């Protein structure tokens, strides 16, 4: 479905999404090139998470088109969208969202296990080392701090070397020091892996790490990012 990535990473055209009679996205458009690190800022309830859900194929749009990695989501079925997420999109959540019943290694390796990759343990060890949790793969998530959970979440999102990473307030549950450190790790790791990153955040310092900062206001995106630190 997705071939060699040469075109834009994401193309959204005039997207409209209504939730309970309220228009969260109202003519939102976006074009991101491969390898771009973008941050999206906006007030609470402005539709940032909805935007990420649309990009990941978890939520349909009421109007407009969404194209991710050259695939027009409106023309795909559920199985194809799941395949797109598993193979080409990594997602980082605000609270890590690790599966409590799996070890750290299994959490990180889950996308690889889903693919039937028999060498997933070697790949996972390398990723855990890269996020600073080397040698702790057999531990369970319930003993980790919030920052450590996010590191595992980052490793999981990148384990299959996706072309696009979507991060929904990845530092929202962390203290200021941990937030900056984790965000920096996320951005660096994505850059090292050559992955594009779309990161929703409230934190100006985190937003400042991106190549491009977008603001979501009244349902539309623009490049005048008021939150961006100068």
């Amino acid at each position: 479905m997705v071939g060699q990535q040469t075109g834009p990473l994401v193309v959204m055209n005039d997207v409209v999404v209504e939730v309970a009679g309220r228009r969260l996205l109202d003519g939102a458009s976006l074009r991101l090139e491969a390898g771009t690190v973008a941050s999206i800022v906006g007030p609470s309830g402005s539709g940032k998470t909805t935007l990420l859900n649309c990009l990941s194929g978890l939520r349909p749009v009421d109007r407009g088109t969404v194209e991710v990695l050259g695939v027009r989501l409106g023309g795909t079925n559920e199985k194809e969208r799941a395949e797109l997420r598993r193979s080409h999109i990594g997602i980082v959540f605000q609270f890590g969202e690790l599966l409590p019943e799996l070890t750290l290694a299994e959490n990180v390796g889950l996308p690889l296990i889903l693919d039937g990759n028999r060498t997933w343990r070697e790949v996972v060890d390398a990723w855990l080392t890269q996020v600073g949790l080397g040698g702790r793969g057999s531990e369970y998530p319930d003993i980790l701090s919030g920052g450590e959970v996010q590191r595992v979440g980052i490793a999981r999102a990148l384990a299959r070397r996706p072309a696009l990473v979507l991060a929904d307030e990845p530092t929202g549950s962390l203290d200021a020091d941990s937030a900056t450190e984790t965000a920096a790790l996320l951005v660096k790791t994505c850059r090292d892996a050559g992955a594009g990153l779309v990161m929703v955040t409230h934190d100006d310092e985190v937003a400042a790490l991106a190549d491009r900062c977008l603001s979501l206001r009244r349902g539309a995106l623009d490049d005048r990012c008021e939150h961006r630190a100068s």
Partner: protein
Amino acid sequence: MTLARIAWAINRSHERGQRVRGAALAATGFVAVLVILGSVAVILLIGRENQRVSARAISVAEAGEETKVRVKTLGNSWRGNQYSEIWLEPMVEAAPLPPGIRTMPEPGCWAVSPGLAELIDRHDDLGARFACVEVMEADGVRNPSELLAYRRVPAGTTLERSAVEAVGFGRREGRLTIDVASPEEPDRPPIALAALGLVVVPLSLLWVSSTSVATTARNKRFRLLEVFGVGRSRRRVLAVLEVLLAAAPGMVLGAAVWAVVAPRLDSVPLLGRAVTPGDLVVPPAVGLAAIVVIVLQSAAIAVATMRRSGAAGAVPRPAEPFQELSSWRYVPLLAGLTAVTVSSYFAGRRAPTVALAGLVLLIVGLPFLLPVFVRAVGRPLASVPGVLPLLSGRRLERSPVRMSRPLVGVALAVLIAPVALAWLSIAREVDPAPAGDQRWQSLKVTPGLSAAESEAVRRSVPDATLFSALMAIDAPMRMPVLHLAASCDAMTQLLGSPSCREGVLSDEAARRLAVIFRAPRISLDGADLVEPSTSETYVVAGIGAAAESRVRAALAGLDRPIVATSGADLVARESPLVAWILAGLTLFVVLLFAALAVTLIDQSVSDRGYGKLLASLGLTREQIADLVRLEFVTVYVAVVGPSTLLGLFVGWRWLALSGTRSFPAKGIAAVLAAGLILAIVGAFLARPDDGERANWETTGS
């Protein structure tokens, strides 16, 4: 006061989960109060009925004491309905009266229970037996449907042989009393144990299901209070207040419904047995005490489940902790198994009571042990290659309590089913009636009739043939043989075909006569056998209830206390216990179903996030459904398998206690088949929200 306000605020939250929790708690409060008031009413009813039975017990005169009334108790039947006949002979001017009778009936007249009076009114053949009838008051009968009749001996008749010399009625300390026969009813200890197992346990399960519904609004407040330094005891108070505030409307409604309905009930709900209107009313003080018990039960469960629902914080933790399973979980079940196993070493009625106590312990203990079974299957499942076994196995291993909770009801149902079937099998097991003859049936009349009485019966029932008879054990073979005062000619006439060969009964005639007279062997001893006073009389008449009724009416006209037994009296008849067992089981199943429904709704709400997470990781809807199916089937096998084996074991022990050999295999096979169908349907229906809210194809982007 502040805690009450917080509890109130939690209940007023508009969060969907909180609305589910509020509705579940209110419904549970309603059901709990209704069930507890109903159960208390039934226990009070049994107490009141037993008091009425005690009040009519015959109080036997002691040596040297003046006899005030002679009493003779007999059994009779009409169309298979057995009833007690009590003959009274006053020996003093103001002879004592049994309860329910205000004045001594005229000589030869009857005082009958309301149930029997209703039948007499509706059926002429029964009415023919009762001349001059008056109806007893309700205080003389166990319940309105009891069939009971008192008769004052006719003028010129006296009760001499085997009558009880009595001084009055009612049990008295230190005096010998004889109960007037009454239908079989459960004793209080077994009914209290059954109420514990079949009502209190599933009711507790329903409370656990309702109080375990976790909501963000509630969890956040508990976490915040903990962060602010509010102690555990005050948080417990908050947990109790929150549960009680939610459940209170349901409790009040339940109490109001019972207060309105109970005085009007003329039968026990689910049981169908008639009661005197007002007998199910619970006195206010007792009702209040019962409701306090429910409040305490809900408070205890609110505190016990606080950890689970209150542990998740305002800021979500990375994961819920590994659920530890301590060894005390084994204790109730092991104690129950021990009690069931050793019950056969107890004598008399203590044996089934011990077995029942063991069953109750098993019912209490099984929900605690199910997580152990679930973890035991989760571990090997997780090691099977593939992502679905890994995810399922680890979930079962890590959260066995949560995973097994939805199927606790099913586990208890399959535990109780074989036991209940065994119970019913025992209660229904009666010696089968012998096959009847195509033309004739006999009634055995004890004591035997005099010649004049026989002639009177013949006049009333012209087609009847009467034989004097005597049952004896014949010496050489020690076999019971019925010696009939009859000739070969008489038998030939009766059977319509030659009955003897060379003066001896033919095999064919002997076989037919054995059926007609319900005796293993027959001997013809000529016309003159024995004195009527030491023998029995067999009245042979045409087949059917009408013929039997005509003979009984003729016997009733003899004005002498006699017992007549027909083949219809020996027909296997369902014990009244069966209705009690079925009513208890119905309540049990209803409560389990309610608990199951609450848990499934809760899990459906809380699993939404899990499905969405898996979808975001790239699992397809089909894979998520397969995962849930695999989990369901694995948990089902882990939970239902051992529970069924336990049920079969207890059922087998139960049958062994009663000496019953016929295991209700068909019934148990039906229950297992129903369980299998439930598993298949459950696995087919199991499907979580996978996070994709709509079909993209229909949105046209």
